[in-house]
């Protein structure tokens, strides 16, 4: 039996181990660990783009790192509301639509956001931010149509009830409240006159309204000829066009309801400082442009300027259409009733 000790002695093993560990030992003082915070967010593309455009290039450099809590928006809101009396909440940043943010602010569960906490908030476009809500992305709701099949684009929400589109009208079921606001805007010039909006929607429904179980499912029907017209965010039109779907946007003459999505910080968030740093990173022009390029949503800060193909796709017509931020005080009150009506009347036919 050969004597292995001659080349693998205890001393040699110790010396080798020391050499291997040398880089770690000689590295000096350990780098300061990034501060972690809990980010309540949607999954899928949105979460991926948050990582690629906000966290990795900007937020990490500011010393914060997210621990994602992925889920639907409404359970996220319910979680914050349910834990509001606890001294230590379960979320630091929650991604929500403006309408939900308003309801949460009314319930007094949100931290106030000031320029001292999030300096970039001063760059937010007028009307999008509130005292407790930091807007991340926005998009006008427009009339979508297939330009290969529809020669004269629809010009108002009422056109969806036109008999020439019978059975060829549709949108995602989840967008029902925004569609109701569009109907309200057409019929009364306000975003929250739902009694009149119901009458308009009933006519659209009688015209063979098609409802789709997800936003993604409402795009391909324009390609198959199942749909000719609908209502959708401008952002989605850009995404569908990029996917080769023949669809175009028409801005309704009565105006466009704005879809605004952003982030809030609960009052009992365990790590507010990290949350503020993340919100500030989210408002940086580079992060905003990343979302515009990849998801088609418009930047919420004046410091981000679109260029190239994205700028063309997301350009608003001249003269600029009427852009309507929903009257959240009225819409959030009406939401339960409209939801019930939608379920029992429109879905149930």
């Amino acid at each position, binding site marked *: 039996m050969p004597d292995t000790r001659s080349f693998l002695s205890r001393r040699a093993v110790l010396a080798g181990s020391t050499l291997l560990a040398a880089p770690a030992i000689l590295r000096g003082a350990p780098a300061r660990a990034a501060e972690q915070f809990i980010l309540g967010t949607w999954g899928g593309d949105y979460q991926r783009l948050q990582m690629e455009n906000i966290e990795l290039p900007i937020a990490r450099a500011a010393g914060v790192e997210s621990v994602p809590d992925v889920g639907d928006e409404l359970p996220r809101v319910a979680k914050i509301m349910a834990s509001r009396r606890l001294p230590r909440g379960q979320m630091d940043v929650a991604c929500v639509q403006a309408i939900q943010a308003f309801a949460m602010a009314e319930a007094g569960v949100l931290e106030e956001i000031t320029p001292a906490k999030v300096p970039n908030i001063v760059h937010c476009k007028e009307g999008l931010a509130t005292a407790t809500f930091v807007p991340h992305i926005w998009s006008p709701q427009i009339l979508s149509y297939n330009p290969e099949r529809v020669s004269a684009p629809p010009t108002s929400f009422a056109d969806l009830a036109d008999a020439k589109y019978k059975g060829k009208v549709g949108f995602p079921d989840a967008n029902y409240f925004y569609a109701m606001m569009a109907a309200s805007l057409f019929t009364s010039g306000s975003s929250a006159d739902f009694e009149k909006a119901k009458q308009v929607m009933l006519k659209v429904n009688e015209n063979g309204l098609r409802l789709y179980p997800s936003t993604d499912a409402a795009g391909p029907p324009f390609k198959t000829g199942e749909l000719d017209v609908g209502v959708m965010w401008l952002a989605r039109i850009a995404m569908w066009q990029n996917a080769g779907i023949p669809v175009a946007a028409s801005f309704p003459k009565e105006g466009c309801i704005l879809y605004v999505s952003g982030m809030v910080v609960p009052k009992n968030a365990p790590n507010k400082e990290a949350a503020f740093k993340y919100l500030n990173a989210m408002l940086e022009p580079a992060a905003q442009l990343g979302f515009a390029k990849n998801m088609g949503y418009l930047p919420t800060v004046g410091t981000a300027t679109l260029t190239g193909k994205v700028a063309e796709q997301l350009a608003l017509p001249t003269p600029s259409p009427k852009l309507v931020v929903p009257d959240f005080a009225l819409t959030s009150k009406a939401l339960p009733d409209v939801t019930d009506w939608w379920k029992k009347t429109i*879905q149930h036919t």
Partner: protein
Amino acid sequence: MKRSDAVAASGLLGPATFIVLLLLVAPLVLLGRYSLNRYDVTELMIEAVTGANYARFFGERFYYEVMRTTIGVATLVTALCLLLGLPLAYRLARSTSRWKSFYLLMIVLPLFIGSTVRSVGWMILFAKNGVLDGIAGLFGGHVDLMFTPTAVIIGTLSVNLPFMVLTLQSVFEGIDARLEEAAAGLGAAPGRAFLRIIFPLALPGIAIAAILCFILGMNAYATPVLLGGPRFQMMAPLLFWEFNTNSNWPFSAALAFILMGTTLGLTMVAQTAIPRRYRG
């Protein structure tokens, strides 16, 4: 049984019984309590003892119609499963082919895929310009089954059929084949032997398979949502809508109890339809 044996048996059964009680009964008790609470848009759930959530369900025609659709789908799917599954299970049980294991595997195989993924497969088949529509197009026809009750029935049937076949196959396996031979020896034709000898013996097992299938149909969620679309309303998606979209936990808890109670009630009624002498 000796006293020491009884103690040992209790000791062995105790932990499992405790876990079952904890995992089954405790959530039900909690859910039952929630169903008596009151919903508020801001507070979400206010502690109370009220029957308002149950009254709301029984007071509105809409909920009655959703329940009717649910029972209709579950009953139809169970009937179709019996019609298709019974001959298949019987043939498999009596098969002596060396391919028998392979056939069984083919029946089990769909269960390896989640019902959501299977529904996506059906969507590709049923959609406009999908596979079926493409084939129909070759003959100048047109098939668009997406978001129709037919799509939901076919989708649910595909989920439930393996459960029916597997349950029935083991039931038929348990019935001695020599009984049929004896019946044949006494002059009974195969059909008569099946109906007079095998079917009555298998009836308790058939009832269990049908109940299993019915319960699965009553609680179907992914298939009605994906293949039926937003307009096709069944109880499980409605329950989720109330829970998720409205955050109305008290009402969704009441819906859960009503669905459970209805399923249990109908199952018991179905049991009474089987003659007493054939019950297991």
